[in-house]
Each structure stands twice: as C-alpha cells, then as structure tokens.
C-alpha cells in the first residue's frame, strides 16, 4: 500500500491493518508526516508538527502491538489536536499571539485519554484566535485555507483540524465547539464532526472560550471514526466540574442499528430564504436518502424557541470577556483587532442580563426537550452557504451568518454533528447537521452512519490531497 493510500484510510480501515501488523504504526505515521510536508505549506492547517514525538509514539505502538499488547482501535493511529488543548512541554498558542510562546506543564484530559488509547500525536492544528471566530483568519499565523478552494475560508474555529482530516494529513483531530466550531469547518471542508452532549467529554486542559457553552469533540472522515474516538475520550473527570457522571455507552456498537423507524424532523426555520438554493437542494436530497432508509421524516419548526437565541450571544460574550479580562488592558495590542473588540464589548454586558440569559436556558431546554419527544433526530443544513472567500470572511457580520444554524445547540448543550451531504458551485462541500436528545449521541451517529453507508460524499477528496 502506497503512502498516499495509507493517508486516505479512515481510522476504522487502518485499525485492523495495524492490529494484524499488515501496516506498522511507524509506516502510517511517516505517511501522514510526508503528507503534511507536501500539503500543509499551501493550506496552513498545522501551527506545529511534532514529528519526532510522533515517530517515538509510533515506535512504541509498533513494539506494543508486536508483543500482543493491542490497546484498541486507536492504537497507532496518527491524529492531531486543535491548538487549544494543553500539551505538556509542547507550545500551545490558542491561535493567539498572547500565548505564542506558552508551554503548558500538563496535558489536556482528552490528550491523556488518546495517549492511553495508543493514538500518535502528529501536532497542533491552526484555529481562530482563542476560538472566538468562525473563519480561521489570523493576523498572527496567516489564514488556514480551504482545501477545496484555497481562496476560501476553512470555517472555524477548528479550521486547521478540518483541513488536516480532509487532506489526509491526519486521520482525526480533536476540535472544540462553542457556537459551531466543529460543525462549521466540518461543513466547509467536507468532513464529519461531532459536538457531544455538554458534559460528555472533559474539558480539563482546554483553553476556554465560554465555559458554559464550550464542548470538546472530534472531526474525522466518517461517523464510524467519530464513534471510535468518542469511545476513547468520553466519561467523567473530577478535574472538570462540568463533566457529567452519566453512563457511557459503546458508540461503535450504536452504529449497528438501522435508520428504519427513526423519527427525523427537518428544521424549516433553517431552510428559509437566508439559505442558498444549492444548500437547500443538497439537504433535500439528503433527507430523501434518509426517507429511503426508512426514517420517518417530518417538518419541524423551532420558532417557539428562536427567541432564546439572544441568550447565546449574551453568554458567549460575557464569559469570554470574563476569561480575557486578565489581558484586556495589559496585552490589548497583542490581540487581533476583531477579537479584542468583541471581548471589549462583551466586558460591558450588565450582570443581570448575563444571569437572566443563564436562567432563560432552563426554560429553553425544557421546551426543546418537549419538542424532541416527537423526534429522535433534527436535521438542517449546517451552514446557510458554502465556504465564503477569505475577503468576505473578514467582514465582522459574517460570524452571525456562519453560526446561524449551529449556536442554538451550544446554548441547549444537545449533541449535534455535521456530515458531508453534497457539493455546490465550485465543488464546495455542503454539510448536513444532525441534532439529538441529551446523551443520545449514539442515535445521531447511527443515522449518520446509515447515511454514509448509502452515499459516498464523505469519501470525496480535494485534488490538493494528491499533491
């Protein structure tokens, strides 16, 4: 198998080859490192490549597997981390200038768990500065570029993660999602990504944006790969007070169920005139596939809860400002103008309004749970449009448009994911968002997997991956 073919294997395809020693972790790691060398200069998906560490970890995995000490399906799989996950002894910038030279003294919980699973860390992925933006434009490190059209944005804030997965530079990457930051770049770059239920994955050792809306989750080539990664990283962690003591299912096993009989609600509010025709056509086609798989498809409206969305903006800005107030005076010039301005106005939100925004969430969650008694999964376009140009991405108002369909589910904390469901003009990917009830990631993964068994959108590659 050639290096290029190795890079293109999903984690689920690579794992049995590593286990059987048909492929060695060192071979797989070298293949991805070579792909990074070829492709990353054009796309800027990595802020740091940890090649020596990766080869050391791969050699260790090779030796362990050789001794029959196979740890599971991530053993020997090369992966990357968004650069907001702390890495002990390795620079962690948060995409910022402020933390440009910061070296943490401990790892994130996610990093620990992936190391225990035997995964091989390739490096740290580019991200929007402090995760406070949806484009991955950066005056500090230059923009990450969309692999399907380098004049366009990747989406963000986990833009580098999505690019790495989309081009074979990484088999999966850990992102984070506060208003859509996993699903947005997943949609724009044509990969799968999941924001699990709030509290499902520990955020210990992850730079915060807004504590009560931040979620840690993976981006990967398929729903099947997402399930494998979730199996390794979920579960309670006393070091993260938002981490929940709930039963942990086997997400890979959950994929085996059929789509037959699942009640799917198509969110009509996100199929309105603000959504481009090609996106609506792509999503309608995807819904037809779900219907053909035996899902019971109906239309649903979120109008009853739409009024609560102001709480998302209020909480996001106030919590982000609370974290950043330490630098807002002393390091103001070290932020990009766009980010510092959002933090500055966030610092002026009256306390009563923040508190009431949090109180409103309780009502919102109750209403949304009531609504979801009639549906197992809600679906919508992840994005109202395909990836915009780098120039359009610089417009401040673009963030609201890009996060239009995603941020509600950060406010709710419900699990939500994006999978590729077609291509628009210019061969730009279209994403389908799937939303589930709390703690029911298995249901949306199951529907996504069934869809991906019936379609091949998730197996398309941008031509730059052949470089």
């Amino acid at each position, binding site marked *: 198998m050639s290096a290029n073919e190795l890079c293109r294997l999903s984690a689920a395809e690579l794992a049995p080859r590593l286990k059987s020693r048909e492929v060695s972790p060192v071979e797989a790691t070298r293949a991805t490192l070579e792909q990074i060398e070829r492709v990353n200069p054009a796309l800027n998906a990595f802020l740091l490549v940890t090649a020596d560490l990766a080869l050391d970890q791969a050699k260790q995995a090779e030796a362990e597997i050789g001794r029959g000490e196979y740890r599971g399906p991530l053993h020997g799989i090369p992966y990357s981390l968004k650069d907001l996950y702390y890495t002990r002894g390795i620079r962690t910038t948060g995409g910022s200038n402020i933390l440009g030279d910061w070296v943490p003294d401990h790892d994130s919980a996610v990093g620990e768990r992936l190391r225990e699973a035997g995964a091989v860390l390739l490096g740290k992925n580019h991200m929007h500065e402090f995760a406070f933006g949806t484009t991955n434009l950066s005056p500090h490190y230059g923009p990450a570029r969309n692999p399907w059209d380098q004049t366009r944005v990747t989406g963000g804030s986990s833009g580098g993660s999505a690019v790495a997965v989309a081009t074979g530079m990484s088999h999966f990457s850990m992102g984070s999602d506060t208003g859509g930051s996993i699903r947005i770049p997943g949609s724009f770059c044509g990969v799968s990504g999941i924001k699990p239920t709030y509290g499902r994955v520990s955020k210990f050792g992850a730079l915060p944006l807004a504590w009560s809306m931040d979620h840690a989750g993976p981006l990967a080539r398929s729903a099947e790969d997402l399930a494998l990664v979730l199996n390794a990283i979920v579960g309670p962690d006393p070091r993260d007070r938002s981490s929940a003591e709930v039963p942990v299912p086997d997400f890979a096993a959950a994929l085996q169920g059929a789509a037959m009989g699942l009640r799917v609600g198509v969110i009509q509010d996100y199929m309105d005139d603000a959504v481009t025709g090609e996106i609506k056509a792509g999503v309608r086609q995807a819904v037809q596939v779900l219907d053909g798989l035996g899902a019971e498809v109906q239309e649903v409206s979120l109008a009853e809860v739409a009024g609560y969305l102001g709480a998302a*903006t209020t909480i996001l800005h106030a919590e982000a400002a609370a974290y950043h107030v330490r630098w807002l005076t002393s390091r103001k010039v070290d932020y990009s103008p766009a980010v510092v301005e959002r933090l500055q106005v966030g610092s002026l*939100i009256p306390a009563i*309004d923040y508190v*009431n925004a949090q*109180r409103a969430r309780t009502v919102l969650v109750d209403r949304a749970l009531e609504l979801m008694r009639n549906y197992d999964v809600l679906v919508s376009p992840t994005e109202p449009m395909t990836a915009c140009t780098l120039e359009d991405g610089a417009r401040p108002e673009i963030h609201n448009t890009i996060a239009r369909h995603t941020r509600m589910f950060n406010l709710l904390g419900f699990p939500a994911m994006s999978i590729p469901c077609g291509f628009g003009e210019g061969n730009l990917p279209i994403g389908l968002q799937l939303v589930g009830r709390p703690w029911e990631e298995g249901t949306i993964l199951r529907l996504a997997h069934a869809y991906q068994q019936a379609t091949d959108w998730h197996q398309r590659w941008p031509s730059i991956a052949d470089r």
Partner: protein
Amino acid sequence: MSNLDDLGAGDVQRLASLAGLEFSDSELLRLTPQFKGLMQAVRRVRELDLDDGDLAVTFQLPETP
C-alpha cells in the same frame, strides 16, 4: 444606562470605566455601534418571561471524597 435605542459613546465610556477598562476616542468610535449590536441580543433576553423565581442559576459541588 440610557434606553437601549439611545445608547451612545458616553454610556459605553461609563460602563468601560466601571469594568476597569479604558477606551481611547477611536476605540469608542468603533465599539459603540458594536455594543449597540450586542445589546440587541441582550434586548431579546430582556423580552423573555423569566418571572418564575424557581428559575435559578445553580452551581454543583464535587462529590464528597
């Protein structure tokens, strides 16, 4: 604070001062319309019916070791 529709640079300056921040004149010029935009989201929260006193903001203690 003034009515949300009448928010001006003076309001933003006063709030910044209370928050321990200082904005230059040019920053005030840029930030005032942005703050007004942000307060539109806040306005939508204010329009919600949150009279129920049982709607609490909570916090969780860790499990007793």
